[in-house]
């Protein structure tokens, strides 16, 4: 029993849990900034820039403004961070998966809303009008990308489920192991495309960062944050940068089954890096920021249509 407990603690805190995902996430932000710089023909910061930012922010004084509601102001980043870490435990890395209940897909989608809500509550708790604008934009973006996310996930669940349907990521991965990655089932290609477009929206990187537009509304909800809480929020973005592509890989590229577990995990991380490069780094280098209602219109018309097409195709047995 103790051995099992230790194993669980190891899983929670070391491997796919707290430590691993934080390090990977921050590294990914570093790589992302480096690649974006390289794409703009400039040298760009060192890869470990994410760590420097984090530790510098930890070293700074953290101010809680007078108009802010202190408990909500300080609790928001932590709740966001904790729910993100818990999410990672549910994502299976091909053959290796820590906790996989029978319906972790819906849990993941719902856990994705908590960081968004945490950012919004944190922003509004700071009592700053800029933060209010940022939070309102974040909410509109959230409404925007939630619809296509659901459509594509339902399509995959229906396709994998066959007669019944399944919400469990493990079954999805096993099914893909059996008959090829979901990405190559041509009925699911629009769903995969929709999910790809949702990833930067959810993470909030450059073209989709209407909520934290530093030029327009001065970093939106994060305006009053400094020091440790701000470091935590930056960590949340870093974690999301790992989790969303990881979900995509689990959902659509799940079929890869090599021999041992270590190889699987390494391959998983590489694939996640590739997906994050395609969805977040390239758009960051080439596209300018969306206006709020254009972002919403983009998600609810084009991307939602993709999801719907794939749901319909899957529905009629293709």
């Amino acid at each position, binding site marked *: 029993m103790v051995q099992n407990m230790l194993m669980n603690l190891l899983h929670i805190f070391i491997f796919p849990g*707290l430590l691993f995902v934080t390090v990977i996430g921050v590294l990914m932000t570093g790589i992302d900034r480096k690649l974006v710089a390289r794409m703009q023909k400039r040298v760009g910061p060192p890869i470990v820039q994410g760590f420097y930012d984090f530790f510098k922010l930890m070293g700074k004084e953290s101010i809680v403004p007078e108009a802010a509601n202190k408990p909500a102001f300080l609790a928001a980043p932590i709740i966001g961070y904790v729910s993100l870490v818990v999410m990672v435990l549910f994502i299976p890395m091909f053959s290796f998966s820590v906790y996989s209940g029978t*319906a972790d897909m*819906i849990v993941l989608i719902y856990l994705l809303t908590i960081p968004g809500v945490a950012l919004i509550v944190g922003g509004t708790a700071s009592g700053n009008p800029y933060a209010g604008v940022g939070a309102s934009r974040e*909410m509109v973006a959230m409404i925007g990308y939630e619809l296509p996310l659901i459509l594509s996930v339902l399509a995959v669940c229906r396709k994998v489920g066959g007669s019944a349907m399944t919400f469990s990521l493990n079954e999805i991965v096993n099914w893909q192991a059996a008959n090829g990655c979901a990405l190559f089932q041509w009925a699911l290609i629009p769903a995969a495309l929709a999910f790809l477009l949702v990833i930067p929206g959810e993470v909030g990187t450059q073209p989709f960062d209407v909520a934290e537009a530093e030029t327009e509304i001065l970093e939106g909800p994060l305006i009053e944050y400094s020091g440790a809480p701000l470091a935590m929020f930056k960590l949340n973005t870093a974690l999301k940068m790992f989790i969303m592509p990881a979900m995509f890989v689990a959902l659509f590229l799940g079929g890869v089954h090599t021999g041992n577990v270590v190889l699987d995990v390494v391959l998983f991380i590489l694939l996640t890096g590739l997906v994050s490069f395609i969805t977040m780094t390239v758009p960051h280098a080439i596209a300018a920021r969306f206006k709020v209602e254009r972002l919403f219109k983009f998600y609810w018309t084009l991307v939602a249509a993709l999801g719907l097409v794939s*749901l319909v195709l899957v529905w009629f047995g293709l």
Partner: protein
Amino acid sequence: MSYIHFPVIAVMGQFLAAFLVAIFGSKSRKASQAITLIASACAFVLVCLLIKPVALDGQIISYWMGNWEPVSGYAIGIGYEMDALGLFFAVLVSFIILMSAIYSLRYLEHDEAVDRYYTLFLMLSGSLLGLVMTGDLFNMFIMIEIMTFSAVGLTAFRNYIPEALEAAMKYLVIGSVGSSMTLAGVALLYAQTHTLNMAQVAAKIGAMQASGGLTPTVVFAFGLMFVGFGIKSFMFPFHTPVADAHPVAPTSFSMVFSTMVIKAGVYGLIRIAYIVFQVMDKSSVQILITAFGCVTMFLGVTMALAQHDFKRLLAFHSISQIGYIITALGLGTALGLTGSLFHVMNHTLFKALLFMCAGAVLHMTGSKNLDELGGLSKKMPHTTICFLIAAFSIAGIPPFNGFASKWMIYQATYEKAVESGNFFYALVTVVAVVVSVLTLASFIKVTMSVFFGQLPEKYKDAKEAPASMLIPMWITAILCLGTGVLYQLVDRTLTAPAVAASLTPANYVDKMMGSGYAASFSVKDAVATAVQHMSYWNPVLWLTLLVIVMLGVFIVILSGDNERGPVLKTKEPVADGKYATFFSGEKYRHSHMGGSDLFWGFKHDMKPYFDFIEEKHSGVLTDYTLWTIVAMAVIVVYTFVFVK
């Protein structure tokens, strides 16, 4: 066996208390409050005592008024039948009545003629309890009438507000159209089966269904009663009176109104669809109910987003949550019904809490306009915490109870979609999830414009709500969290027996009319698909992970060595200095981001849609009645054409 009298004692106790208040109340306010408290407390205790026998042991209490037992298989007296379904609603009703009674002690301190309020209040609670316990169709109609009258009376309680009278008028007209439809339905049923007792009617209709289709009178009766109860539960076309009534009704009443009076309609729907007419296995009826539920869901939440008034926003959310319940109800599967009933309980809890918070804000600041309020979290911390718990549970954020039931509904609709191969249900799931996000959006809007942000000058001296208002708020908040986390426990004790009761009409009929009665009329149990009504979601695993990671994060934070800046203790917003809000250099001035200037992107894009529905809610009584009658016609024609 003494508990056999508890149901009737509970109901009659309320009416007795109502008359006592009418007599003694006018002299002293304390007397009427005391009587009300005692009556609602004892009703709650009596109903809770019934949980053990009825829900856990599966007994069904049948109680004949005046000992008029059925003679040779023919029910002649008025029968009270308390099965698990009725008990489930009775527990919720009595709990909310008790909370509202405690809440109203301090809430009505500014009003006079409070004894009239309490009389109507007790009549309302008596009729609600009677409605869920009665086994007789006409008695159910009478209870609905009493409920409507007391609801209209209570809506117009503050008759110095013109809008209150207008709302009461609208509610009365549409309510009485609904009641007339129910009465017509009951009359038709009586014409066909020559009995009013639900069990016997169910038996007769069971026999009818076994030997070929339903006769046209029964189909017409089902159509009319579906409309009647639809109006009472404020489904899509009939939702306007509740939206008008809530902003003006006293909060302690609108708390009961939006939770239990609406649920009475839902109870009626479940009763007639599942047990009396046993039509829920017909796919046409399922599509009808789910369609109406879906439209109600979407319309409720989009209208809520465009509101400026706190309580009107909450009213529209009640409508959209009712949409959820009716959608899940209409699926006909066991999981759907479990999701629906569990959402009934959750909605009762968090909606009551939301209205209590709205009432507290209104009581303390005197305004419920979202554009004027702001930054109350510093002055009213308790209310803010309760509100956040309620807002997160209605939006369906995991640890809270809203998530558990909404999650069941998604799973049910999607399972239904897959099992019946009908694409419509997949769309219903998608709409359900989008509506949940929109609910989250509109509650973020309320949080931003009322509790967080900056405190306007006017409410500088707002104080925290009095203790007697906070007690019910905290009780409901803890229950909200509790049902979310220990939802399997709640499911085992209350929801599962209720679902079993409503899916097995045969057992219901036997208990009422004597065993073997149902068999003779070949009443079969609803062939529900896999009765595995357990949804996969087990919060325990997820919560333990959350707690463990939270501990880890705190350890990291404590080891970090950056010293927190000491926060100034001044209560006024600081104009200058390190802790002032950053206004890009300007001095502090009140600029609060809330109310109608939020979600610009969303409203801008959906402008044609918002304009259309806002214009449709014109506020004119005749428009609303036109909607009602058109919808009635559509439903009746639909039932005639499709329900065989």
